[in-house]
């Protein structure tokens, strides 16, 4: 089963902008896909649709085999909770909360029982190398640390798909490499990783890159 399968996805914003104009995309478990394209090409719109943060105007989108277009909101919330992990350009770390508390928000949202939380948090932090920052306030983290925390949060509930929008956009080369390594690890575990990027190194790293232009894929660039 493909992890996600989009067919003829369109998204027309209320103002009339056709941000997506018939996108087809298949991503297999463990596959790393990079989506590149100029600003305004519709990359974020596509990622939001794949992440069930936004409803496509038409088309079909199957996540883990389940059709999501037209699905009721509760089920979409549920799928986000259980199947997806997000990493944004802005790490969206809650600055007033500690590193551990940031992770607790995700676990509580996913209704993970309290007893299971500390080991999961410890495991996640160990994976991204932030164990020593467990009790630091989010606002005190460096840019690279914040993004590592965001990845720790994304992998906390073992999602099937990780969706990342410019995850290395604010990072230097070293930290960008760290992020790629972490995604590699997830991909080896069978997680489908979809990354929007301007970063050539990220595009080169992916198993497959697709170019989005004016809401459509123009060519695939197999590695």
């Amino acid at each position: 089963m493909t992890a996600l399968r989009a067919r003829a996805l369109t998204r027309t914003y209320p103002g009339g902008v056709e941000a997506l104009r018939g996108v087809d995309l298949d991503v297999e478990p463990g596959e790393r896909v990079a989506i590149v394209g100029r600003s305004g090409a519709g990359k974020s719109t596509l990622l939001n649709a794949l992440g069930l943060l936004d409803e496509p105007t038409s088309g079909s989108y199957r996540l883990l085999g389940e059709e999501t277009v037209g699905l009721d909101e509760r089920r979409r919330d549920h799928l986000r909770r259980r199947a997806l992990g997000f990493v944004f350009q802005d790490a969206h770390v809650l600055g007033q909360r500690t590193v551990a508390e940031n992770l607790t928000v995700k676990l509580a949202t996913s209704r993970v029982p309290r007893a299971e939380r500390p080991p999961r948090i410890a495991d996640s932090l160990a994976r991204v190398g932030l164990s020593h920052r467990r009790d630091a306030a989010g606002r005190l983290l460096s840019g690279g640390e914040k993004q590592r925390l965001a990845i720790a949060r994304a992998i906390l509930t073992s999602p099937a798909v990780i969706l990342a929008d410019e995850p290395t956009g604010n990072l230097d080369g070293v930290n960008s490499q760290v992020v790629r390594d972490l995604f590699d690890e997830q991909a080896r575990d069978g997680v489908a990783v979809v990354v929007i990027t301007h970063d050539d190194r990220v595009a080169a790293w992916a198993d497959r890159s697709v170019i989005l232009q004016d809401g459509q894929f123009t060519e695939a660039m197999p590695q």
Partner: protein
Amino acid sequence: MRRMPKVPRRGRNPEQGLARAEVLRDLISDVLIELSVRRGRTMLVLAAVALSTGALIASVGVSQTAAQQIGADIAATTLDEISVGVRPGGADQEDAPAEPAPVPTGEDGEPVEGFIDGPDRPAVGTAPTTVFPDDAEARAMAIDLVDAAGRQLTVTGLPGVDVTRTDDVPDERSGLVIRGAMPGYLDAARLDVPDERAWLLRGDEPVVFLGSAAADQLGVPMTEDPTGYQVWIDGQRYAVVGFLAGSGAAAGPASRGATLGEDAVMAPGAAIVVIPYQRALSMRGSDADATMLVRTAPGAGVAVGHVLREAIRPDAPERLEASQVQSLDSLRDGVSTQLGRLAAGIGAFLAVLTALLIASSMVASVVARTGEIGLRRALGASRRDVALVFLGEGAVVGVLGGLAGGALALVLVVGAAAINGWSALTPVWMVAVGPALGGAIGVVSATYPAVRAGRISPAIAVRAD
């Protein structure tokens, strides 16, 4: 190793079955963290809730205390009736008959078998035991500002004492009260009898005045001149000499005589038969159940009440007890209701103001937290989850603020009472109502911000650009 997990439907996965209590706990700790993070704003909102709920509760509390006080003041200034009774259990030898009736003895000096000591009614000719002196009315009237005073003694219910039209055929009657009264009693009770005939009650003559219901039951027509009509009381003929008129008044507070119908309202229309006081005293053998009704100039009731017992029994004022007649409850209730409405109006205004304040502060907070809300939605939080965080914030701030407000109100009410020299009314509800009120205000005012937070589009909220 490749995973292709299917996401199970809710409820089929044991991991989904997080107890409701734990979800609530997560929500509360989330809310508390949020509130402590924004400590400054939280303190401001808390203070606003505390002030408004405090003012609301205090205004109700102070108005209740004030109403009680004003009611007491009005009662004191308009009190004009006092009832004087005999304090129970104070009989002493001096008041006892000079010569106790000797117990009959047989020839051998033993008491006659079957003789019952302490008969219900004294033998004819035995002097009654009295606490009120014979000139009690004159003594009371000697006090300045006393307008009328007179004793009454109800004899209804005494064995054998009954009233009928004829001596042989007992009629069917119900609830007739037979009361001995001094002329001043009718005056004090605001009752009139025609042609100034009240003096007839002063002596020992067998005469009666009838209330209209009593006249009706006894078949005595209420003509101008009832001469010739007679009733039988206690085996004696009494001449009907008039009927009661006037406005009437409550005949004093319920007292020990209540079982004898003494608390019946003395009104011209009552089923009452009034006989001379001395006759009633002879029937009862004691004035232990007698009361004297005293009417004073308006507002003089309290002052007169202080000196009345001393004036009547200077030698033993403790044998008497004076009670003030409370007939102004309705007036006091009116004052209380009006003040209460005013206070409730001010309180409602304050509550609305506070709700608007919380709502606007929360809307600002929702806008400021747009990114966080988008993130939470991306992490899988539903609209409801997001809205609940804000509702929870409103509830917690409201309850805590209301708690402080209740305490504040308590201090204000006690303080206001102390400054004005009132006795404070500080019921327990005042403390309990604070959190309830504050919580309600908090939840209501958080509703709009919460709904707004739930409507935030996650796709837009997480955008970096």
